């Protein structure tokens, strides 16, 4: 078998849990040094997949290769991985130093080698002064740093993160997020990161795998995922506030045009179709709130209309406005300096080229 060089390669992975099939024929190739994020709602199988890679769960079928070695039947410790858990999973009765060195002691490393590795991890994570403390004496962020350190001392090829920031408060989360990114840039290890937080996914990943019901929906870089979602599910899942959707029909002819159910025509001549469609079909047009332009510039857009503002939600950096277009609730965001009030009329417009068209039946991108 001559496969190309991958850091982690998952081939036809199937996992049954009792009678339910959690993962089915899953394939995923991860490049050396890549930061890949598995993103999805709870219960989509992303953590399960990570546990399979770690060897903590017995798989039903398929193979797992790490560093060009088939590790399908190998114990977690022999797979060359380090793992960080959501609940930190530190050994509470041991000091930070003992926590870090436990795995190395079990593996029978020499004292000075253990000391060297612990010192290096402590230096990278800037926690030299914490080494003699017990986990209870640490804050959440410090605990998670120790947990990362425990993966670090193993000098593993692949790092696995299972929702490592979900137990932290918002401020710490963004701090540690940057720290993980810095760590990746410094170590250049392969990292697989599970989360349900799309901000974490978009900020950290080289590539994001969006999962639903045990199936990877789309595997692409954050920019593509955000701008060219491959189906309706991905389009609705990514983005906050979420995308506006118009139900309607796509009319083909001399000029393609999207007609909403209430009869509003939206010209789509500027839209780049993923597939050439010959016939008219029922379709869904999705447009992100931040791609709708309000006020002066709206008139110049391929589609523009005048609407009445219903609700105004100031978010600090920008303001989210609720209104109705073609009998459907629509949100758009605009500069927070703009003074808007409910009941006020305003021009809005957008370019369908920045939106996404989906087949209403197959929900795939058109």
């Amino acid at each position: 078998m001559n496969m190309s060089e991958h850091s982690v390669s998952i081939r036809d992975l199937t996992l049954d849990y009792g009678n339910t099939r959690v993962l089915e024929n899953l394939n995923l190739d991860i490049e050396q040094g890549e930061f890949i994020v598995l993103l999805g709602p709870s219960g989509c199988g992303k953590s399960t997949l990570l546990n399979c890679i770690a060897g903590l769960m017995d798989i039903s079928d398929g193979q797992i290769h790490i560093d060009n070695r088939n590790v399908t039947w190998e114990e977690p410790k022999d797979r060359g991985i380090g793992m960080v858990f959501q609940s930190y999973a530190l050994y509470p009765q041991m000091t930070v130093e003992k926590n870090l060195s436990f795995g190395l002691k079990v593996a029978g490393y020499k004292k000075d080698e253990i000391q060297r590795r612990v010192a290096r991890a402590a230096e990278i994570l800037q926690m030299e002064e914490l080494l003699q403390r017990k986990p209870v004496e640490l804050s959440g962020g410090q605990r998670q740093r120790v947990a990362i350190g425990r993966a670090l001392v193993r000098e593993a090829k692949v790092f696995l993160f299972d929702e490592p920031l979900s137990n932290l408060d918002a401020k710490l989360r963004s701090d540690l997020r940057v720290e993980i990114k810095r760590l990746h840039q410094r170590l250049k290890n392969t990292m697989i990161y599970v989360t349900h937080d799309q901000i974490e996914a978009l900020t950290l990943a080289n590539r994001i795998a969006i999962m639903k019901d045990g199936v990877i929906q789309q595997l692409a870089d954050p920019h593509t995922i955000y701008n060219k979602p491959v189906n309706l599910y991905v389009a609705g899942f990514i983005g906050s506030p979420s995308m506006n959707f118009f139900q309607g029909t796509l009319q083909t002819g001399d000029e393609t045009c999207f007609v909403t159910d209430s009869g509003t025509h939206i010209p789509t001549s500027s839209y780049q179709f993923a597939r050439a469609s010959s016939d008219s079909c029922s379709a869904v047009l999705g447009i992100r709130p931040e791609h709708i332009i309000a006020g002066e510039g709206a008139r110049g857009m391929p589609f523009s209309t005048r609407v009445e503002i219903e609700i105004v939600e100031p978010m600090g950096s920008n303001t989210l406005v609720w209104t109705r277009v073609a009998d459907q609730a629509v949100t758009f965001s605009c500069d927070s300096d703009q003074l808007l009030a409910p009941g006020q009329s305003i021009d809005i417009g957008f370019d369908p080229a920045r939106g996404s068209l989906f087949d209403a039946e197959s929900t795939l991108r058109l």
Partner: protein
Amino acid sequence: MTLVVNNVVPGASGRVLEGPCGPRKSQLSIARLGIYGFLIMAALFFLMPFWVMIVTSLKTLPEIREGNLFNWPSDPTFEPWIKAWFSACTGRDCNGLQPGFWNSVKITAIATVVSITIAAINGYALSFWRYRYANLVFGILVFGAFVPYQVVIYPLIITMRELGIFSTLLSIVLVHSIFGMPILTLLYRNFFASLPMEMFKAARIDGAGFWQIFFRIMIPMAVPITIVAIILQLTGIWNDFLFGTVFAGRQNMPMTVQLNNIVQTTTGVREYNVHMAATILTAAVPLIVYFISGKWFVRGIAAGAVKG
């Protein structure tokens, strides 16, 4: 209680604070009085017999015959205690409770260590190494907690006889270990089940095996529940009478059985003072254990009851 509203004083900020301010004054409500009243009554109810036992054990036989159950002895004597310990008679042997005490110590110590060790391993394996029939095994074990002892005594006697160990120290230790297993396994399983699974996974990634995880991570964390288990077994085995009578044999007769024999001996006068002293001596061990460990005991019962 009324609040003094007229007495207004400027607060730290210079503002005048009127009305309720600062912590609420605690007050002795009727409900609280009722609770304390009930507790005192209950304490008296249970302490009264104990008082009678103590004063009786310190009296001489003629003084006991005078009646006056609750009176402090006019001339306290420790003679009955010494007799109970060294020379009270059971049948023809007049060695007091002393040999029974040491038998009980032997039985309790060995059976406690054996049963707790096995139960801890059981509970650990059942919560973390989820093999296929783990739940079934656990179900059967827990079911064992509900089997009345009387049902299994006869089959057990036959088993012990066939094994050739009936009426030996080994048989009584074995019986206590087996019967301690369901409740102790339940205790340990529930404790381990309350620990995060991720910690176990982390240990596996660190390369620790079954025993390494057990001894280096789980046991150090299980100290509180182990204290509870020790209390449960210590008091339970010490207080046992049934198994001691049936399985221990004459050589290993535990203290409880010997106490019964002393009290039941019907030749001559009934030495109430000696009987009382002997009873207090026998009850002393579990009593001391309860006194020292009350907090842990309650905690353990709660841990076993709430988590399931």
